[in-house]
């Protein structure tokens, strides 16, 4: 058997995703791809991969994976609980997220709940040896294409690895968790803002809107102030961009995300600026948002600034200590930031508070 990861227990919604299936929307093929392109890129950077390498996108709760390779380096990003055990009966060692880890043959990586958001990423150094479908390894489960057999993971799956062992190298971590921003979600009004009354647009920009339980990779239904239509809730179908906010007749908005359909017939009041799409892609049911309108030019500038922050986060990756060791670099950083004197007592590593 070639090098692989054995799925001992599936998570709630684990799929392979890259930066999307580009160029086939005219056939009705959705782009799919990472719900949080920032998280995917950081995970790949930690693993030493090109940005578009397919990684495991973990939704809400992660899987339990057994290493069937001589060694494997993974890049783990997002506030997810991770434990490593040498065998099913061994006591677990807690692994920090937002860093790379070197795993050995037979070790079991137990990924648990994601804290406060819906999405985390696990990239493997060298990537997974999966076939591309229409130029991408992104899973689009409604059509059963891409990723691993076109579906989310199930117990017993063997996920083929491109490398039989991990290249020798230091482990790396993010200097700080990536700041996705807070405050209102920036949107550009349109393409059909003229299908809503002034009061309807004011209600939309007034908010707040709560993420309902109907939230998945296709989109999220929001609940909040009713948005009034000016001339009905039907248009002749036109294209749906990432982050398009369509409003069916009941007046409650739906934000269209990675697995969204290519075209649709509900009027779209606004489109989420690409800088804030990862925040929607990570949103859990119950999360509350307000929206604020920006121009196309402002949205383009915000996105360019975010790309700068991502590039600096990747350029600023620092060497990480092995689990169980004392991360003096992090303690030192903390002292510089908050001026607290730490005693160098051995503690189990834990995620930084968010």
């Amino acid at each position, binding site marked *: 058997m070639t090098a692989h990861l054995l799925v001992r227990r599936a998570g709630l919604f684990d799929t392979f995703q890259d930066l999307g299936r580009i160029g086939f929307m005219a056939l009705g093929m959705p782009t799919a791809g990472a719900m949080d392109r920032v998280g995917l890129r950081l995970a790949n950077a930690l693993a030493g991969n090109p940005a578009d390498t397919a990684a495991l996108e973990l939704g809400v709760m992660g899987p339990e994976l057994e290493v069937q390779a001589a060694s494997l380096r993974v890049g783990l990003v997002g506030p997810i609980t991770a434990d490593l055990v040498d065998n099913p009966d061994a006591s677990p060692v807690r692994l920090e997220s937002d860093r790379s880890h070197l795993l050995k043959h037979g070790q079991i990586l137990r990924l648990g709940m994601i804290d406060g958001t819906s999405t985390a990423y696990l990239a493997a150094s060298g990537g997974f040896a999966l076939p591309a479908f229409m130029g991408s390894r992104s899973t689009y489960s409604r059509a059963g294409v891409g990723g691993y057999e076109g579906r989310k993971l199930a117990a017993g799956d063997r996920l083929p690895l491109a490398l039989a062992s991990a290249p020798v190298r230091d482990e790396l971590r993010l200097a700080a968790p990536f700041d996705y921003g807070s405050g209102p979600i920036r949107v550009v009004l349109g*393409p059909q803002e003229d299908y809503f009354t002034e009061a309807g647009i004011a209600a939309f920009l007034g908010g707040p809107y709560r993420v309902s339980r109907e939230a998945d990779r296709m989109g999220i239904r929001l609940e909040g102030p009713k948005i009034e239509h000016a001339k009905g809730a039907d248009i002749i179908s036109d294209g749906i961009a990432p982050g398009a906010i369509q409003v069916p007749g009941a007046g409650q908005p739906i934000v269209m995300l990675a697995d969204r359909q290519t075209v649709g017939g509900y009027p779209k009041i606004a489109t989420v600026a690409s800088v804030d799409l990862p925040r929607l892609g990570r949103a859990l049911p119950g999360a509350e948002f307000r929206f604020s309108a920006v121009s196309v030019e402002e949205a383009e500038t915000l996105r360019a600034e975010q790309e700068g922050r991502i590039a600096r986060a990747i350029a600023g990756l620092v060497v990480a200590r092995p689990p169980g060791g004392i991360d003096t670099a992090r303690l030192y950083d903390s002292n510089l930031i908050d001026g607290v004197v730490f005693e160098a007592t051995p503690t189990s590593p834990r995620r930084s508070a968010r």
Partner: protein
Amino acid sequence: MAAVILADVRPRYLSCGDTAFTVEFGNEIAPGINARVMALHAAIAARQAEGGLTGLVETVPTMRSLMVTYDPLATTRAALQPAIDALVGDGPAARLAGRRVRVPCCYEGEDFAPDLADVAARAKLSPAEVVERHLASAFTVYVLGFMPGLAYVAGLDPTLYLPRRSEPRVRVPRSSVAIAMDMTTIYPFESPGGWHLIGRTPLRLFDQRRQHPVLLAPGDRLVFERIDRAAFSRLDARVTEGTLDWTDLIEAA
């Protein structure tokens, strides 16, 4: 003559955030408008093939508009829109020679046709009359979209025009035959959907096992043929096995 007038009308440009904009040629379903959409779609592809239009990612044609997606890190709306506008009106209007495709459809049962009674009531017709008018409609595929292989099919009998449901269903079964506005469609997969479900076909609009996974193409003419539950089951089994003879259903243009 309508086409001559249309060709002089400049399109509207609609914002779709900072990664896309829509070139809207009209707000109605009309062959002349759709031809302008397909012509711009083709002109952009040709310019891209020559190495032009840096930062343009892809284009998405619909009945009456073309969405242009772009990478905001490689270009800007301000740079790309004039370059697209310069291509409007260039190139030949696409003329599509469609095939004739027979679509067996079962209109029976609450599971296959949950909205048939409601459509009939709203159209002030009997359910049988709704089925007859659907069977008699002269349907043509305009564009593909929404999901892989889903065709927007115009030509519905005008007495059956209804808006979409105000609340879309969370789950519509695969191969459901549905109507809304002046169109009919067939769902390639189980998915959410807001159209009125009046029947089901054993055909699959998207099947990875076929050499061409997408069944229909723009320009195809569809003829629905009524089948009963027993015939549905027989055909469905053959489709599932992959033993259906498609040449029996599709006549070349």
